[in-house]
């Protein structure tokens, strides 16, 4: 009982909401936040794709260390890191089970599976550090300047604007289900009935949320029309004015050069001392 109380204190909806919002809205004082969004996206793609061209575990390990440092620099929220950590631990656990069951009782399959997981891990941690430090507006404008359709780039920034509201609304609906619902009398083995009850409520709560959003969107689309959004889609001048603040400056070149340099050094080191 005491342990669950402690967990509840740390892991309540309020805290989770705050952490998510902090992650989503970026931190203007973080180093990565001031890099041009297009440069950051280029870097992100490089780091995520590069590992798939190698099976060298030294290289992979060093890239993990490198991205981890960047995650620390961009002050990724502990909650997100914990979630990532839980993901890794369960992943490792399944790998052991899978290789035991399907590998004929030996651990031969573990290594290749580990290599695969490391690549996935690099992608996740790179995403977290990039998207946690970039503000939604810069992300959306970066996409727009890369010739992504304006409808999509707007949807990205609008999604961020709606996020806290959706979180609140989801929580309210979840509470509505609980207020009128009934927990099972018989808790079952390891309280599985209770767990099952909560899982059902978590899933069911999405349906009213979706309907509510659908209703609200009608008005939003109408307001978009009044506020000139569809006009801007056919107006190159509007796009130019909107993106005029995006410039690749010396510090952006410096950033990309040093990062590519670090990756090259890792690559060379890994090829010299393969594991």
């Amino acid at each position, binding site marked *: 009982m005491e342990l669950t109380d402690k967990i509840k204190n740390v892991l309540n909806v*309020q*805290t989770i909401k*705050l952490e998510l*919002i*902090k992650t989503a*809205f970026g931190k203007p004082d973080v180093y990565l936040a001031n890099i041009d969004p297009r440069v950051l996206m280029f870097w992100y793609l490089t780091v995520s794709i590069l590992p798939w061209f190698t099976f060298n575990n030294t290289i992979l390990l060093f890239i993990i260390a490198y991205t981890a440092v960047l995650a620390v620099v961009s002050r990724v929220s502990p909650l997100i890191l914990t979630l990532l950590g839980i993901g890794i631990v369960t992943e490792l656990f399944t790998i052991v089970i899978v290789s035991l069951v399907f590998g004929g009782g030996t651990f031969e399959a573990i290594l290749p599976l580990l290599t695969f997981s490391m690549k996935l891990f690099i992608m996740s941690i790179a995403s977290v550090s990039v998207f946690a430090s970039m503000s*939604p*507006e810069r992300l959306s404008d970066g996409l727009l300047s890369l010739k992504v359709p304006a409808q999509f780039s707007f949807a990205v*920034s*609008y999604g*961020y*604007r709606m996020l*806290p*509201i959706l979180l609140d*609304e989801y929580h*309210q*609906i979840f*509470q*509505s*289900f*609980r*207020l*009128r*619902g*009934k*927990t099972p009398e018989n808790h079952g083995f390891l309280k599985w009935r209770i767990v099952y009850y909560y899982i059902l409520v978590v899933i*069911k*709560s999405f*349906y*009213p949320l979706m*309907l*509510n959003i659908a*209703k*609200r969107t009608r*008005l*939003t689309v*109408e*307001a*978009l*029309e*009044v*506020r*000139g*959004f*569809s*006009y*801007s889609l056919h*107006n190159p*001048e*509007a796009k*130019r*004015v*909107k993106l*005029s603040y995006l410039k690749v400056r010396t510090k952006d070149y410096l950033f990309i050069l040093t990062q590519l340099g670090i990756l090259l050094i890792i690559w060379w080191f890994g090829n010299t001392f393969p594991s």
Partner: protein
Amino acid sequence: MVSLNQSIIEIKDVHYQYPGAPDPVLNGASLTINKGDFLAIIGGNGSGKSTICKTINGLIPHYFSGDYEGEVIVNGLSVKEQPVSILSHHVGYVYQDFQNQLMKLTVLEDVGFAPLNFGYPDYEDKAMWALELLGIEHLKDKTVWELSGGQQHLTALAGALALNPEVLIIDEPVAQLDPQHATLIYDKLKYLNEELGKTIIVIEHHTEFIANYCKHVALIEKGKVKWHTNVKQGLLNITELEEVHIYPPQVTQAALQIAHFSDADELPITVEEAKDYFNGYYFHPGTNSHQANLHASHSAILSIKDVQYEVKTLQKERRTVLDIDALTFFEGERVAIVGNNGAGKTTLMKSLAGIIKPRIGEIIVDNIDVKRAPVEKLSSHISYIYQNPEEMFIQDTIYNDVTYFGSVRNLEQNERYEQIADQLDMRDLFPKDGRLLSGGQQRRSSVAIGLAMMPTVMMLDEPTASLDVGNRKQLIRILHSIRDRVKTVLIATHDMQLVSEWATRVIVMEHGIVVFDGTPRALFERVEIWKSAGLKLPQITELSLGLNIHPALSVEEFVARVKEVQLNGANG
């Protein structure tokens, strides 16, 4: 001053039918609005008020297809021939659900959204200009979800203003705001109207606001403009107004009840006018403000002791939002909890319902320790009706929503559902999806859902917000009629008229602390308390205080207390 004689909007014999709708919404509507006017558009639900406004900014016929006939001229431009994007420069629009009109994350980005879409290089200057005009430039870097409702409305208004249109249309500003913020919005509109010569059109049914701010008023009925006249004459068309559930200001009602023979032009519509009008009248002192003391005769049903609740902010600070030493509610009480937004009303209710659990303190409801009991167990003792009914519709029909509580518990209570259906006039609503109902129907449904849980205590969070006067009256009737079903009712509200007509006890909250606990009458006598808590008194109470008599709680009471009518008292 801008001349009132030059027309800026001409609506000529407009017919319109939404695609797929069985009947036309507009049936030959004609209306001429002059430059610099401050016009209130009134009318019943579904009369075509919003539709007529959408023919002005070109959404009809350009965005909504459908059968359209007639002609609308705005600032010399024919709406039919101009695209919405051009018309947006002439007409700004603020929706009733203004939250959905805000597109961007921060205030400055949002206000600059329209100018940026039109490709103005100085879009930020335009946005700052609009913000400064409304006096909210300090909010520019805030994210929109951090703002209060009133601030969000101002942001939406600034967004419409950023293109510097000559005409502003505001759909029901009072509906979603507390009275203090509604007054603030109207003051800003008045400024835009008087100082910048903007033409303002509001859709409104709160006659107190119309009387205080508007110059003209137009009644829309069955898709036609029935009449269009100055405010005073309009508000005195009593019988026609009552047909569409609009009631004259309280002071006008009082004057009418006292002297039917009075010349219409002399009747007061604002508190200031009423003070002159009733000058020279004599009044009986108010009835004894002591009410039967329920505390001694009835048992306590709900008690709170040393409760504190704090929230974490984005800056990782902890802020106390609720701090109550001791509070007890008794059987048979009708309690109103009032105070500004953020005063802690909702937090108090949610703690009582067990939805949030304060770490410090003790809450007992119906002999149950709230902090130890799961909400699933508590809900049959104390039910909480959300401010937004849509968040309570978790099933596909209202009937399933009402019966959800009973069916997961395998309760046989069809009889009870029948009673609820009759009492709340719900029969037609049962097979419908809650999201598709009107505001008043949604509110009634949410009360029905609460009643079906057979609670001992019922709590409603701002039940009269966004209801028109007709629906509001119906809700108050329902609140009175459920007295035999629940033992105690708690309401969080800004609606002081509801407080004075319904409550037996008022709790005033400020910054999470209870600053007053007593009868409504006692509260109205404590000027310093309601002033500092930012409450807006009902017109009739304000008038009685202005006349230096004991505060009257209702028009009926005020009228009954008049001692002696002086025929020459008016305009004395």
